[in-house]
């Protein structure tokens, strides 16, 4: 197999328990290059845990994960090198409060990728401009709105030029009027060809932007397909019940 034929992200038979509580009961997922996969599911169904296993913030109990064919799981993996290929955006932004927007974005460029200061600043400014915040580079997180903070967080991940980006409810902590800006940025990132896995409750965004929608419940993928199929003609009762609950 050549490298080009590899899926960008592949998850095989992923299991994870917290104590005796099984949270992921065998997840298989293949994400192709430039695909945007949307993950839906009730609270507690394991969406965050699955996403966090995909960069090993959470350690899987068993199963395998590959990024462009390179193994992420198992011993002997250079985790810090692999993680630069997997961008992560959190619900609560998690910006570094003691650093400016520019400092937030340059930190990993400087300390992990060992870029010289000027080159890192250029790359960071480019990423900030891409999320529409080139003019806010010198602001501290506390001086930015929630929507702007999340866009800086996206720039922080984007600047490392990852292969795939994981979004865990990126707009759930935002005031409704700020959600649109963040979704616009995500649309833009997708348009550039980024591979994305998005956990979110933004149904209309999913319908419009997603290539594929996955419905998870109780640690399993219950159903998946193109947005039109999942939203308009779900096959599974659990999917139907969930959709009627969130839209009703």
């Amino acid at each position, binding site marked *: 197999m050549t490298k080009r034929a590899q899926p960008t992200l592949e998850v095989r038979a992923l299991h994870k328990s917290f104590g005796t509580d099984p949270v992921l009961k065998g997840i298989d997922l293949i994400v192709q290059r430039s695909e945007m996969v949307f993950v839906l599911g009730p609270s507690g169904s394991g969406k965050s845990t699955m996403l966090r296993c995909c960069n090993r913030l959470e350690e899987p109990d068993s199963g395998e994960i590959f990024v462009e064919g390179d193994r992420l799981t198992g011993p002997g993996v250079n985790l*810090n090198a692999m993680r630069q290929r997997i961008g*992560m955006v*959190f619900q609560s932004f998690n910006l*570094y409060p003691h650093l400016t927007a520019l400092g937030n974005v340059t*930190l*990993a460029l400087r*300390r*992990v990728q060992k870029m010289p200061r000027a080159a890192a600043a250029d790359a960071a400014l480019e990423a900030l401009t891409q999320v529409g915040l080139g003019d806010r580079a010198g602001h501290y997180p506390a001086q930015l709105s929630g929507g702007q903070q999340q866009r800086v*967080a996206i720039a*922080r991940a984007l600047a490392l030029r990852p292969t795939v980006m994981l979004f865990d409810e990126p707009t759930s902590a935002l005031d409704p009027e700020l959600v649109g800006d963040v979704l616009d940025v995500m649309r833009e990132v997708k348009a550039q060809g980024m591979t994305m896995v998005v956990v979110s409750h933004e149904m209309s965004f999913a319908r419009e932007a997603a290539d594929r929608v996955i419905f998870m419940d109780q640690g399993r993928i219950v159903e998946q397909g193109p947005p039109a199929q999942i939203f308009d003609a779900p096959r599974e009762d659990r999917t139907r019940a969930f959709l009627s609950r969130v839209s009703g």
Partner: protein
Amino acid sequence: MTGFERFIDTFWNTAVLVRYAPAILQGVGVTVVLSLLIVICGIALGAGLACVRAYRVRPVSFVIVIYADVLRALPPLVLILLVFFGLPNLGIRLSAFTVLFLVLTLVLAAFAEEIVWAGITATPKGQWEAARSTGLGFTQTLGWVVLPQATRMVIPPLTNRAIAITKMTALGMVIGVPDILGQATTAQSFSANATPLTLAAVAYVLLFLPLVVFSRWLETRFSGGRA
């Protein structure tokens, strides 16, 4: 002599004052040097121990916790006497100055370790996760993300503790350190007059009042939110 004159003669006798002021000024020098050394070394050692503890290697953390708890529990005077009068029996001779420096540095380090550790654990988990998700290692995350935030949080309590410990340099008197109080008590016994002690009190106030005011300012500045 009226009561007031007797009072002045006892606590602010000009002749005694002029005679012993130079000695007490020397004591000020000793106290300042000693305090600076204790604060710098004590905080550095304490912060270092807190960082080591962050790696959560059980036996190592256990030793650090025991160290911090014992040194915070013991009255520093007991330690000073124990070290000063005990070590010579083992053939180790340290000057009074060195003993005072060592003991107070170790005591401040114990408190500083606990304070900085509290700051490290109070830094939200999301900060670690964000940093690690960009490929920063544990040590890099500690150094570039967690410690800068922890430090901000703990500057007020650390300042207060540093002031409290440096004031204890006065305990050096009992083993003959020529610091402010040491010089003043010597002068007091020679002159049979309390004026040197008044002078010492004035010196301590001049030395520490600005620091106390400074710590109050720090507290308002760093309380809540980022500075």
